[in-house]
């Protein structure tokens, strides 16, 4: 007992002194005018990468995150029969959230950027480089790891409703030429293909002096075969096009419905050469607490001829097991093409 305690104490003593010597050396070589900066940077790295438990491992590849020099983050890659190499993840990323293996020997690295945005890195581990990198929100990788559905990036603060309107985007990792498919000339964040709203509706950005904006409250849901993508869209203000509600037991057709927050389900079919977008108007939502229609996509089940969605209010500690407000089973044929 005494011996083991002595060993433990010896190890602790050595670790402490080694760290002390290392920190002393660092302080020695740092400019005297900036001792606090060095400490701040070290703390920041420690906080941004709180632990190194985010790893990926299969038969041929092992990935892990390590803090890099200054404020950068490195991806440590160990490929089969090769020594570990480090790949720099640019753009000052926060915590790495997860890895996904993609076709073509690529890996997708999803890291935090701010409070509600993400960095996406497409990494070629064989070549040891980042093939592509962009910012986005709510990324969801398809089950076959080929597609990334996401909301186009916008700054998290200091933007108005128009600037923060949501655009559904698709990045096809398998194409390998998404950089060429982007819309603008050189913007690193303007990447991938626009899915929704359709480009022909983008011109109608204002209605009666009010900007028409979209908000996707629930993220994206992929079908198991990665051919369909579903998400919920709240429109501000209500889009008259979507007022032709599809429902059972029709009595008499509806006259014009006053503009209001509207909810619609958007279905993207990727089987065609060009993704086809269609939508299903569910219901005029009833305003809730903040006078804002809070309906969320709680679950999706893709069937052969139809899909079933569970829609409900946001979860909270007041209603942790709140049942779905309503379930809808919708034949695919009932989605109206754009």
């Amino acid at each position, binding site marked *: 007992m005494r011996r083991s305690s002595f060993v433990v104490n010896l190890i602790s003593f050595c670790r402490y002194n080694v760290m002390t010597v290392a920190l002393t050396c660092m302080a020695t070589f740092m400019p005297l005018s900036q001792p606090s900066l060095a400490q701040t940077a070290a703390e920041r790295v420690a906080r941004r990468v709180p632990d190194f438990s985010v790893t990926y491992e299969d038969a041929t590849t092992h990935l892990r995150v390590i803090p890099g020099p200054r*404020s950068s983050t490195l991806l440590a890659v160990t490929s089969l029969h090769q020594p570990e190499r480090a790949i720099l993840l640019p753009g*000052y990323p926060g915590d790495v959230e997860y890895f996904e293996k993609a076709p073509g020997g690529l890996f997708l690295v999803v890291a935090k950027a701010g*409070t509600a945005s993400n960095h996406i890195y497409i990494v070629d581990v064989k070549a040891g480089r980042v093939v592509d990198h962009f910012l986005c929100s709510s990324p969801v990788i398809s089950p076959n790891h080929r597609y990334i559905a996401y909301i186009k990036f916008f700054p998290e*603060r200091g933007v108005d409703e128009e600037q923060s309107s949501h655009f559904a985007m698709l990045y096809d990792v398998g194409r390998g030429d998404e950089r060429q498919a982007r819309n603008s000339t050189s913007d690193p964040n303007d990447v991938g293909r626009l899915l929704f709203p359709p480009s022909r509706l983008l011109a109608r950005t204002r209605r009666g002096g009010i900007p028409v904006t979209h908000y996707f409250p629930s993220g994206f849901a992929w079908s198991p075969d990665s051919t369909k993508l579903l998400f919920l869209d709240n429109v501000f203000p209500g889009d008259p096009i979507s007022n032709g509600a599809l*429902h059972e037991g029709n009595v008499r057709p509806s006259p014009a419905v006053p503009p209001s927050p509207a909810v619609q389900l958007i279905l993207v079919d990727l089987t065609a050469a060009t993704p086809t977008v269609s939508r299903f108007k569910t219901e005029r939502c009833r305003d809730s607490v*903040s006078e804002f229609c809070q309906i969320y996509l709680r679950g999706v089940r893709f069937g052969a001829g139809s899909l079933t969605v569970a829609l409900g209010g946001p979860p909270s500690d*007041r209603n942790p097991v709140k049942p779905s407000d309503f379930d809808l089973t919708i034949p695919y044929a009932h989605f109206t093409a754009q």
Partner: protein
Amino acid sequence: LESLPPSLGRSFSSQFDRRRVFHWRTIEPLSRFSRLRAYASFALRILRVVPKLFAPAIAAATTFAQAQTLPPVMVTGSLQEWELAAATRGPLRQFGDGFGSGQAALGRGTVSYGPSARLKVGRDWSEWCCGYQGEVVWSGRGSARRRITINGLRAFGLFIEPQSRRSERISFVLSDGQFITKMVSGAGGASFFGFVGDGVRSISIRDESGGAFAFGDLRYVDGWGFAITPDVEEHALSTDMVKNAFKVELDAPYDTGGYSGNLTYLLIDNLDDEFYSEVIGSIYQLWPEGTYTNPLTRTQISDLVPQGLNPGFYDEFSVEWGTDPGPTVQTNLVRQAPYTVYGSTRHSVYNVPSESQCSGDPSPVFIVQGTTCANAVYLNGTLDSDFASQTAINGTGISVNYGVVKALAATFANSCTNRPQGSDTSNTFVEVTAVTGACGTTLGNSSVATFPLFNHYRSGDPRSQKDPKCGNSILAVNSDNTNKFVKTVADLCPACGQANQNNGADAHIDNFTTDAACEGGSFTDIPGSPFWTANTRNDKK
């Protein structure tokens, strides 16, 4: 008296002797009711002895007794006339959506109409009247009659429209025998029928042409079916959620005819049928003159049972006195109190990146000076690479050499086509004079960001009444019901609309801080978060 709050006990004592002074206010119908009940009891004994002989006489006596006991009931086919009369019985309320399969809850009352199909005007039932877009109840295929049982309502009315597009005669018959009948067009001509008064147990609706019909757009005053007529001459209500002061002034004593009960403050959310009441104190027999200012239990957020004001849009404040069970007297005056209660709310903290706190490498950038695409000047400059990355994500940053800069995507320059080659959202920043939010005002430690912001709607648009809006006051309250802070809405927080950002709370608000850091999201939530939070719209009511 010892059990009363000090203010109420004092008032009660001081007013006790005045009771005799105001003796003339004693409600006569109650004592008269007792006498009539005795008469009816005696008559019933006689009825047992010689039922066949005296039955007609007893029925007449009973009818007479009821007529004398209850105030007369008014039946009308005019909405305007109904509203004038019903307003004397309490606050007018409207019901359009949320019909049950056979019953609808109207405040503290109910109407039962039997199993029926509910249709949506504009979708299932194309035309109605007067802009109404809510639900209606269908009498059913070929069904020309429908009986509606009334409970707990002091006034009630509804719109009726025949299914046929022709004009058909509709009859509206009360349980006391009164009725009204009129022609109603089925082509968007839904017409109003209603009554005001206590004691109506049911109504029967009949389409005299034998066709089906629908009814909806209900109007009512809830309360007890048997109630004491309010006799409060003057009273005044005021509310101040920030000071937590809810005031009622009672100017006249009120003899309750021997009943005892509680004084209760009511906050009502007419939109979501949320109803919050708090018993302020017990007052026996007399409603004493005086002014009462009391706090409400705004919150008591516990781990197990959240209490206090639930999330909702509370638009009315009123006061009532009543026994449970028993008659209730509600003040006629309803104070508009538009408070939006967000409930348990996560209060995160955000800042803008500060270049002086960053330690990246210098990187070339474009610095834009100007306010329009035409007069914009693009300068070559250098910013810390970490600062540039963080500012592009956050939207605004404080640089060492260029002052406050905004990310390209958050400015006018994003849509300019004359930007220089190589300029993009990651390396182009626009000089501005101050750190401003979506509202255009300078952000400080008392600024908050919310989602959404209803600022773009013009006056007259219903959405212009919604909140939060720029300039609204946000009140956060500790779990012990003391104020945490009051801040001002000044920015939009797109991420606050995502439920997974709420950390289990009902809502999410982001609080700006001037504390410096290199990253935009460097600070943890305000200690003690979540807080019960309300939008008080920065005014007293």
